[in-house]
């Protein structure tokens, strides 16, 4: 009798201890957020600030040696340069692969990188460029016109994004050992930009010829500052210094990208200095805000701006969302401002369209929807759904989206709409992207600065006809005026023209057709230890050079 009582009492004591040991609650998020909000208003400006902040630790001469350890919270699937688009693969690939051109985040200019120069001839519809001499792949083969021709053609013909990015490249000819000429079938203003990305990435033709296509899935062979050494599944990817790097010097001995499953664990490892960088994809905002509060240096990854949007199934006539008033009601019922203030710890930017405030693609005339649940209920009543209805929201399974989905569920419950959470694993989600049965989709879409290509993939009728899977193919409306605006942008010859068409498309998309409800925009938040210097990849997204001159001040 006494013993059992003792056990129970001790258990209660333990519980009491835990309750009293609980640390202070998070500081009131709104006080944290206000200073950040000011700098987030104009996204490009914010990037300049962080860029100077990052380049300030330039003080001191680079020290040689050391291994950079990066924690990545997303598992790597496909390492082939032509395979996917995934940002998680880009981070690691950036150490060993390079692209033909580079995109300057500050000026928007596209500069030559692996090539000496490039020339776009609009009258003859050709793009000519000359490869830099003296660049060698990690396996010793030379980078020249033949390699460029092979890479571009292979990407165009074999990548799932080939048509989307390089579809207008009809022919590639080698004019001499180092000069290439692309013959274009039509104008695509995004072509040059695409060549700064995976589409322009150069893989060793010799490696492909020697080992075959299966080799490329897990052996990147490029021209970059580090050489791929090994890949232990679910654990880490290891790179070694490239002693013959053409754009040297390379200070580090190597780089390791470790795969982590839990944000909490990555946070602890970072605080313990076991890892030097947290690469932000899938890194939850709560531990991120803890690290930010603790004073660690953080910055958003420039090329990972993602728009958190709700999409509607408008095509299906049985679906309540077929009626534009229902879509508008949902837009009025969700309070994106409060969500952004309370849940994002100041990391995200509020926006009501597919562009960041301050970007040339942003149209201030888009009215958007303020939070007004009364109006939402009125609209539902008008549409004949006074008592609400049942629907579902489909999304890819990760914790951020689960929380957001639950919040949306809560808001819509207030106006009588019962939302079921349909969360799918990434593989199953991929199958649902073009037709998510009914209801809504909650998606994180990469967009800035490649808004034109994104719109082309979703609204251009010519593209939709030739692909099996495209976001919203079976669910969205594909009206002619939207198609015309997007095609107009794609076929523009100047950036100004392109941006004008896109701004037109924004108004159509958000105010006229209400295909989406944008909630906020967030890039992956990366944390970098103070002793990591000169890693500009996060600012520029530039493959190769962005990661070449990193050094550790230890």
């Amino acid at each position: 009798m006494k013993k059992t009582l003792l056990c129970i009492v001790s258990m209660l004591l333990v519980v009491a201890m835990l309750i009293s040991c609980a640390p202070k609650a998070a500081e009131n998020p709104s006080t944290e957020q206000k200073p950040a909000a000011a700098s987030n208003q104009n996204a490009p400006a914010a990037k300049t600030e962080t860029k100077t902040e990052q380049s300030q630790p330039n003080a001191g001469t680079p020290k040689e040696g050391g291994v950079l350890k990066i924690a990545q919270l997303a598992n790597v699937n496909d390492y082939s340069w032509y395979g996917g688009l995934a940002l998680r693969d880009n981070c690691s690939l950036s150490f060993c692969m390079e692209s033909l051109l580079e995109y300057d985040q500050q000026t928007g200019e596209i500069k030559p990188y692996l090539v000496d120069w490039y020339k776009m001839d609009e009258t003859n519809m050709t793009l000519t460029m000359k490869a830099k001499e003296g660049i060698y792949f990690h396996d010793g083969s030379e980078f020249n016109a033949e390699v460029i021709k092979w890479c571009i053609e292979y990407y165009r013909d074999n990548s799932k994004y080939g048509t989307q990015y390089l579809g207008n490249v009809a022919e590639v000819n080698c004019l001499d050992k180092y000069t290439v000429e692309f013959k274009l079938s039509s104008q695509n203003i995004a072509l040059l930009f695409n060549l700064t990305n995976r589409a322009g990435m150069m893989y060793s033709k010799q490696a492909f010829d020697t080992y075959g296509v299966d080799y490329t899935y897990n052996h990147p062979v490029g021209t970059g500052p580090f050489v791929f050494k090994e890949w232990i599944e679910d654990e880490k990817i290891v790179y070694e210094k490239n002693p013959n790097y053409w754009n040297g010097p390379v200070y580090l001995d190597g780089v390791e990208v470790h795969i982590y499953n839990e944000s909490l664990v990555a946070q602890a490892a970072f605080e313990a200095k076991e890892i030097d960088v947290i690469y932000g994809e899938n890194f939850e905002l709560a531990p991120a805000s803890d690290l930010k509060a603790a004073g660690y240096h953080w910055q958003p990854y420039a090329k990972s701006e993602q728009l958190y949007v709700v999409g509607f199934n408008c095509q299906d006539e049985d679906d309540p969302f077929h009626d534009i008033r229902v879509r508008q009601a949902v837009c009025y019922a969700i309070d994106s401002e409060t969500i952004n203030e309370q849940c994002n710890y100041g990391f995200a930017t509020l926006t009501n369209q597919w562009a960041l405030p301050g970007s040339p693609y942003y149209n201030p005339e888009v009215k958007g929807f303020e939070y007004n649940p009364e109006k939402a209920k009125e609209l539902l009543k008008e549409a004949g759904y006074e008592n609400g209805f049942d629907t579902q929201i489909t999304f890819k399974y990760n914790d951020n989206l689960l929380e957001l989905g639950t919040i949306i569920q809560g808001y819509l419950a207030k106006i009588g709409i019962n939302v079921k959470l349909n969360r799918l694993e990434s593989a199953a989600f991929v199958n649902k992207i073009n037709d998510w049965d009914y209801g809504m989709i909650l998606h994180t879409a990469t967009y800035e600065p490649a808004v034109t290509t994104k719109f082309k993939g979703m609204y251009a009728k010519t593209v939709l006809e030739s692909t099996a899977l495209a976001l919203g193919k079976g669910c969205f409306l594909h009206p002619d005026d939207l198609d015309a605006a997007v095609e107009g942008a794609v076929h523009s010859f100047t950036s100004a023209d392109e941006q004008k068409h896109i701004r037109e498309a924004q108004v159509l998309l958000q105010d006229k057709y209400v295909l989406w409800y944008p909630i906020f925009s967030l890039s992956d938040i990366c944390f970098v230890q103070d002793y990591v210097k000169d890693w500009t990849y996060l600012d520029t997204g530039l493959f190769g050079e962005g990661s070449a001159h990193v050094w550790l001040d230890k």
Partner: protein
Amino acid sequence: MGSYLIKRILVSLVTVFLVTVFVFLIIRILPGDPALVMLGEGASPQKVAELRAELNLDKPLVQQYIIWIRDLLNGDFGVSVTYYHKQVADMIPSKVAATLSLTVPALLIAIIIGVFAGTVSAVKRGSATDQIVTVLSTSGIGIPAFWIAIFMIFIFAVKLKWLPIQGYTSPSADFQMYVKKAIMPVFCIALNFMATITRQTRSQMLEVINQDYIRTARANGLSEGRVITRHAIKNAAIPLVTVISLMFRMLVGGTIVIESVFNIPGIGAFALNSLMSRDYICVQAVTLIMALVTIFGNLFADIVFSILDPRIRERWAK
């Protein structure tokens, strides 16, 4: 003995066959088109059809099953749908090794501590020790392993910083680090085993202690210690076999959540990730391997213990 062996092996083979059919069918019920998953967004319908033909998805089920079995017998477990197009057979051994490096020590610790605690508790029945052991062992069954894992991480890794939060180092690579990282996962895995074994040992020992031959041994003047070690434990051990053979399932399949929490690249985490990615080829392979380990483990244990206890053979002869 011979007929028992043959019977027992035949039964195992039938079970193996049933498991293969079951695994084959159940994976095909999983929603999602694997070819579409592999090629992803933006793939052309023609490429999808080509891949389906390549994966034999357009053939009738029976033919697909036969092709699969034929490949299995050749050691080809298939090429993963989502994991970088690698041969599944290449990926599995290291993962099984990682899991076993944790479950085997856990099971050993559980057996040693469990048998000891159960014996002591039975011998000192009714005393304070017995009460505490009973309460602890029944509690050990009830506490969810993943929750204890989180709790331990919170106390030992986050607050006290004595142990690393997660991860796995192979014992051959760095033994000291392996031990440090293995302490928490091994404890969490062992907890449930320990509790069950303690309870079972205790009840078995209680039964045995009350038997006539024990009384006789005591009456003959044997010391209590000798009585326990010479007679009681040996006889109580054999029914423990049933319990331990149930544990075979757990050797490879019971660590999914623990591996997920501690980020251990073992077979359980691999099964979970493959299932979540709808990588049906991997799920098939992993489930089958786990089932085979269990079936052959049980077969081996049964044969060994049938040598020790002829009564088992007799039961089978019926």
